[in-house]
């Protein structure tokens, strides 16, 4: 039987998206295969030339030089995949490091607080050009193996892998922090029907509790003047704007930065949800709905700790 979206799911999101039917239809289709070029090992030009020789059609995206989609199911059978010249990654999952690229470039010490299996860590290290230090942490020891495998495959030299519950992370101070938080993963429904089967509002509320603790800790690990990106792959405002609002209340020196990504369609964070009113700062966060760019769903906020 074909999976269907729960009625409650539809009710929740009809009011916060411009075209609910387009969203719901899109959620029932597979996203395109996509990958990112690993600039620690090669260049987008090289990869394009090679795939051209293979006769595998790949298409670039307007918002990044190194991101491609393809209809081919065979990118995993290329030499480039074996060598870590490309990293198979969902399009919207590439956005967190992109919106903090400038800050990462200027950082000596970067924390990827929930890093496994390493899609964004490998991307951050490439932006750092293997200099400085990237601390990649995850609480789940089982996922650390994949993190290590992917970092080494991509030729990452500047990494330190830590296996800690972020809430009890030792007190260090980082120039930049990425918190790609564990979430109810509603945005990944297209790729994985298990996310749909497991969906419940209870899960949303449970994730939000943990995210409140994670975001305050991640923020406290940030140096004054530093930037933290908070991201989730879920639509639930309880896990998105509400978490940012919580941080702003708990840490008054936290200020949101505007995000702009040329060539990408997105909408802004919402200020009202289910009778809750958030700080108008949350409008600076962005929401990627799957039907906007034929990707998965994502939420991103860029927070600066004032000096």
């Amino acid at each position, binding site marked *: 039987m074909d999976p269907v979206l729960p009625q409650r799911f539809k009710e929740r999101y009809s009011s916060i998206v411009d075209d609910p039917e387009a969203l719901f239809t899109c959620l029932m289709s597979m996203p395109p295969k996509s990958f990112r070029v690993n600039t620690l090992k090669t260049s987008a030009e090289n990869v394009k030339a090679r795939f051209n020789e293979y006769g595998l059609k790949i298409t670039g995206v307007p918002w990044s030089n190194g991101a491609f989609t393809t209809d081919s199911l065979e990118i995993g059978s290329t030499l480039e995949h074996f060598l870590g010249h490309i990293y198979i990654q969902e399009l919207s999952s590439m956005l967190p490091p992109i919106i903090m690229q400038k800050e990462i470039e200027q950082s000596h010490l970067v924390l990827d607080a929930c890093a496994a299996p390493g899609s964004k860590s490998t991307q951050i290290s490439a932006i750092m050009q293997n200099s400085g230090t990237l601390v990649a942490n995850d609480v789940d020891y089982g996922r650390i193996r994949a993190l*290590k495998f992917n970092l080494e495959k991509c*030729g990452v*030299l500047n990494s330190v892998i830590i296996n800690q519950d972020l809430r009890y992370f030792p007190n260090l101070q980082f120039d930049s922090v990425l918190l790609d938080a564990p979430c109810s993963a509603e945005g990944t429904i297209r790729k994985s029907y298990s996310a749909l089967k497991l969906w419940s509002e209870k899960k949303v509320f449970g994730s939000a509790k943990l995210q409140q603790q994670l975001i305050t800790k991640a923020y406290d690990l940030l140096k004054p003047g530093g930037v933290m990106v908070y991201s989730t792959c879920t639509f639930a405002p309880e896990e998105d704007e509400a978490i940012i609002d919580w941080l702003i209340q708990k840490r008054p020196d936290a200020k949101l930065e505007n995000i702009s990504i040329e060539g990408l369609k997105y909408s802004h964070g919402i200020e009202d949800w289910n009778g809750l009113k958030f700080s108008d700062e949350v409008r600076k966060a962005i929401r990627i709905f799957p039907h906007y760019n034929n990707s998965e769903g994502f939420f991103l906020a860029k927070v600066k700790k004032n000096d």
Partner: protein
Amino acid sequence: MIENCNKQEKLLVLEYLKERFGIEADLFSNYEFYSGGQGRVYLAPSGISNIQKIVTVGLSVARTSSTVKPTTNFFQSFGSFVKKNIVLPSKEKTLKYLKGEDFQLDELEMNSSTEGYVMIQYKSGNNTFFLGCGLFQNNWIKNVLPKEKRLDIKFI
């Protein structure tokens, strides 16, 4: 447990890389060598001793026991600096290598290599690819590619 390599272990690796592959030590001057137990030697940033609860760091360069065994990831990252003991298998044999199989080399493919660990290299048009490590013995390459890396590659 990750700790700074002792001088002896670091020297053992550097001398081996220089002697067998012609790699100069100063290539690594921006990084530090670490020891991760069971003879594993890693290359990673310096100045990380204040970080607690480290599981692992950077790139595993080699494993030391009675001899030194360089890793496939090491060759993939530093292959362009390797000057000798490079073998050049045909396309067919390269595909075998990527799958994890052993194969025999002819004279030309051996490329004057001597027995021991070698780097497997593949050329296609103007591109040179550094694929990984193999053990060269009796004209054969014994495959030492880690199981999780082995792939049935169609496009090469």
